[in-house]
């Protein structure tokens, strides 16, 4: 057991720490990070000294002694937080994000900050200003993005679990690429206070874990209303772990015909269809050919509305109050130069695009049109959920792609989020979990989507599926 402490799940880490304390776990993963991070670059910062001064676990808390790693766009008091951008180097938040406060109160150990696409703009973690992240299953491939560091760290057993954020798939797509479990909760389920904003009407924080059970354990801690985030929902938080063992008998699971179309890799399709058969064998009712007719428009809506919100949110980075400042002769020039030198290429692309769609003369044709089609996409889900309890599909159209393969073609990169973006547009919860491997050994993820605030049904089905295949036992060779 003690030789494999780095492999502990949240569930097992809680058990271990309650008997033998947290230090052996921290030592095991610290050693692993020291060796593996040189290659994988999943962590931007981790300070074993700061992770350790833990008082011995005196009273049992829900996450006593469990190390959790944090995506670098979630504010931690007194610790540099950069969104993997040069413009935020030296930015030390004077407060904790609500999720950090909740983790600390639950007894968790904040263990390092994970690499990401700059400002969460990307699907491959290649846009980080501090170096790319490599996929633990194949070091020549991307881990997905934007929470690529969080997903790679969990997959490589460099941490027990991690937090990511998801604006268009940034938790689920890297979870699929790295063979781990990623949950984007319902919009409003988890407070965004202290999450550095990208698309404020889309962003959600969620857990990236080794198992579905761990995901439920973490959501129990993270979820809930927060008076500091006026968009957080004042809805009751159930005990999500109670849903795990309900089984899938009687659940109606729909396969949207718009998801199984050209562009979907044949090995991914095969694996997801096999998953549907497994659900059927477990007692679920599979409903073929449900329709989400506006799926083909989702990426276009997203790259209008989300970038509009992003350009507005990134207006605050001007060199005045924190982070980078490039000295200049006057204030105006300081803004222009700081933003030129501070932002990377993808950030500039999205700022320009967002500024354009909001600019006079183009607002109605782009931004307002995008918001209207967003309504149509929401209505697609509302209609589908009259017929089914869950929607099953692939998380990403392909297995993890090669480093450099899509970096020069932004549109190709954006289209890798075709299956994840709709859930953000509609605000519904969705989870990616492993469903198989390609012949060459790359992970494949499936996505389960549920009605707003019905994460329980996702946990219920996800756990039943996971117990059937037990894919979490398969580990990358590192």
């Amino acid at each position, binding site marked *: 057991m003690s030789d494999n402490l780095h492999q502990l799940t949240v569930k097992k880490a809680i058990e271990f720490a309650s008997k033998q304390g947290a230090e052996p776990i921290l030592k095991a993963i610290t050693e692993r990070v020291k060796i593996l991070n040189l290659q994988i670059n999943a962590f931007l910062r981790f300070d074993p000294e700061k992770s350790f001064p833990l008082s011995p676990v005196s009273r049992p808390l829900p996450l006593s002694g469990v190390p959790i790693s944090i995506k670098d766009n979630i504010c931690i008091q007194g610790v540099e937080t950069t969104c993997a951008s040069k413009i935020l180097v030296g930015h030390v938040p004077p407060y904790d994000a609500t999720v950090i406060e909740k983790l600390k109160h639950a007894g968790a150990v904040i263990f390092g900050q994970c690499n990401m696409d700059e400002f969460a703009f990307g699907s491959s973690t290649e846009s980080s200003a501090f170096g790319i992240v490599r996929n633990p299953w194949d070091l020549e491939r991307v881990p997905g993005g934007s929470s690529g560091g969080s997903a790679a760290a969990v997959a490589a057993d460099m941490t027990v679990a991690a937090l990511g954020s998801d604006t268009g798939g940034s938790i689920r797509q890297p979870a699929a690429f790295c063979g781990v479990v990623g949950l984007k909760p319902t919009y409003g389920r988890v407070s965004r206070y202290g999450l550095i904003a990208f698309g404020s009407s889309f962003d959600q924080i969620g857990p990236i874990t080794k198992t579905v059970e761990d995901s439920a354990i973490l959501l129990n801690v993270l979820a809930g209303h927060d008076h500091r985030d006026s968009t957080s929902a004042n809805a009751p938080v159930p005990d999500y772990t109670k849903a795990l063992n309900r089984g899938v008998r009687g659940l109606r699971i729909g396969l949207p015909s718009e998801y199984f179309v050209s562009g979907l890799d044949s090995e991914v399709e095969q694996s997801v269809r096999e998953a549907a058969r497994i659900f059927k064998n477990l007692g679920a009712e599979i409903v073929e050919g449900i329709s989400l007719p506006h799926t083909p428009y989702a990426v276009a809506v997203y790259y209008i509305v989300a970038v509009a919100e992003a350009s507005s949110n990134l207006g605050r980075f001007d060199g005045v109050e924190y982070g980078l400042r490039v000295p200049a002769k006057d*204030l105006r020039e300081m803004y222009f130069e700081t*933003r030129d030198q501070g932002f990377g290429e993808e950030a500039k692309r999205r700022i320009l695009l967002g500024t354009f769609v909001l600019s006079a003369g183009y607002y109605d044709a782009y931004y307002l049109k995008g918001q209207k089609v967003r309504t149509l996409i929401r209505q697609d889900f509302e209609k589908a959920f009259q017929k089914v309890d869950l929607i099953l599909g692939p998380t990403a159209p392909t297995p993890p792609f090669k480093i450099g393969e899509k970096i020069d073609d932004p549109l190709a990169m954006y289209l890798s989020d075709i299956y994840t973006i709709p859930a953000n547009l509609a605000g519904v919860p969705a989870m990616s979990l492993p469903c198989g491997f390609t012949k060459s050994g790359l992970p494949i993820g499936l996505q389960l989507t549920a009605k707003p605030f019905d994460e329980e049904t996702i946990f219920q089905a996800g756990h039943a599926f996971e117990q059937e295949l037990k894919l979490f036992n398969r580990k990358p060779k590192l």
Partner: protein
Amino acid sequence: MAFDIEKIAELARLNLKPEEKKKLEKDLESILAYVEKLKTLDTSQVEPTSHVLNIENVFRKDEVKPAQVRDEALKHAPLVDGKFFKVPKVVEKE
């Protein structure tokens, strides 16, 4: 469509290096060409979605509460003068 990158960069308060200007302009034109597909949908009877939860505005009392954030916030500022953020001059003398 002709995308006037100079004008948009000006609005976005963003200097662009000459070598990146061309590529960004080309990328943005191809993205805008892609989103043209939205125009094929009739949305004349559709309400826009600005927020998915349909929640009501949240009000609270405007009360003064003690806070120690000023010193903390100034500690990591690029340049300060006492209790102020310091910036270069805004207007040049004639």
